[in-house]
């Protein structure tokens, strides 16, 4: 995600994948969430980085695995009101992967959330 490539991001999801993104109130199809995420991150001035914590993997069935982990996500955006930096310090992720016939792993379900609201820093307009 920190690489900002919409095509690459979409490649990780199965066509019928369902996701809960950071602030969404309902589960939604991954395609809708990815479109929104791509628009948010597409700005040339946007910069993102992520650090993934310890990961727990559970093989739930022959072709399915559940990955759970914590993460930190940093997002910098420039807008008319100046530059804002958003730091998600206590991100939590659940991702369920399916192994396709060709061996690829695709996400069929994702739940991203934060245990504590992100910290936001704003600096003056340019």
């Amino acid at each position: 995600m920190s690489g900002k490539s919409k095509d690459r991001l979409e490649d990780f999801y199965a066509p019928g994948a369902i996701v809960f993104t950071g602030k969404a109130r309902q589960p939604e199809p991954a395609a809708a969430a990815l479109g929104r995420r791509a628009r948010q991150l597409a700005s040339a001035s946007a910069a993102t980085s992520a650090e993934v914590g310890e990961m727990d993997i559970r093989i739930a069935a022959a072709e399915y695995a559940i990955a759970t982990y914590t993460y930190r996500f940093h997002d910098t955006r420039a807008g008319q009101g100046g530059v804002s930096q958003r730091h998600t310090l206590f991100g939590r992720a659940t991702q369920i992967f399916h192994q396709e016939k060709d061996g690829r792993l695709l996400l069929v379900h994702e739940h991203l959330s934060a245990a504590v609201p992100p910290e936001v820093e704003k600096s003056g307009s340019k």
Partner: protein
Amino acid sequence: MQSISVDQVRSEVFKFWSAFEGKTRSSFEEQYSPTAGVFAVDGRRSEPARLMWVRRDREFFGPQSSVRARLGTITVQLLGANLAVAAYPLQFSVVRTLPNGKRVGVDVPFCRATQVFQIDEKGKLLIIHEHLSSAEPVAPKELPSQ
């Protein structure tokens, strides 16, 4: 082995919240695999179900605590014959008793739940993973002692 159905998963979700609201400890615990992992709404990391049972028992199942949940539409993904995911929004209100004896009320109007169910060898659906979260920040309110 029988396959999981969408109705069966929805029924388990309602049963789960009924046990939680009713503070029926045994029914509540029986719905989890002992090896399940859980992200609580405010948990900074995943915790084992056995640890969560002890914490929820202390905080939510005491005489001065209460749990209320109003479930939204439950989306069910059937992943093969013995695995399914339930994803749904809910309004969640709790009064919890902290280890220091203080009571706090927490309203989570935009709670989100993911519960992964697996069918065991006896044909029972068990939660093997749970992720609860809030779409909006929530602030606990300290309540007077009863």
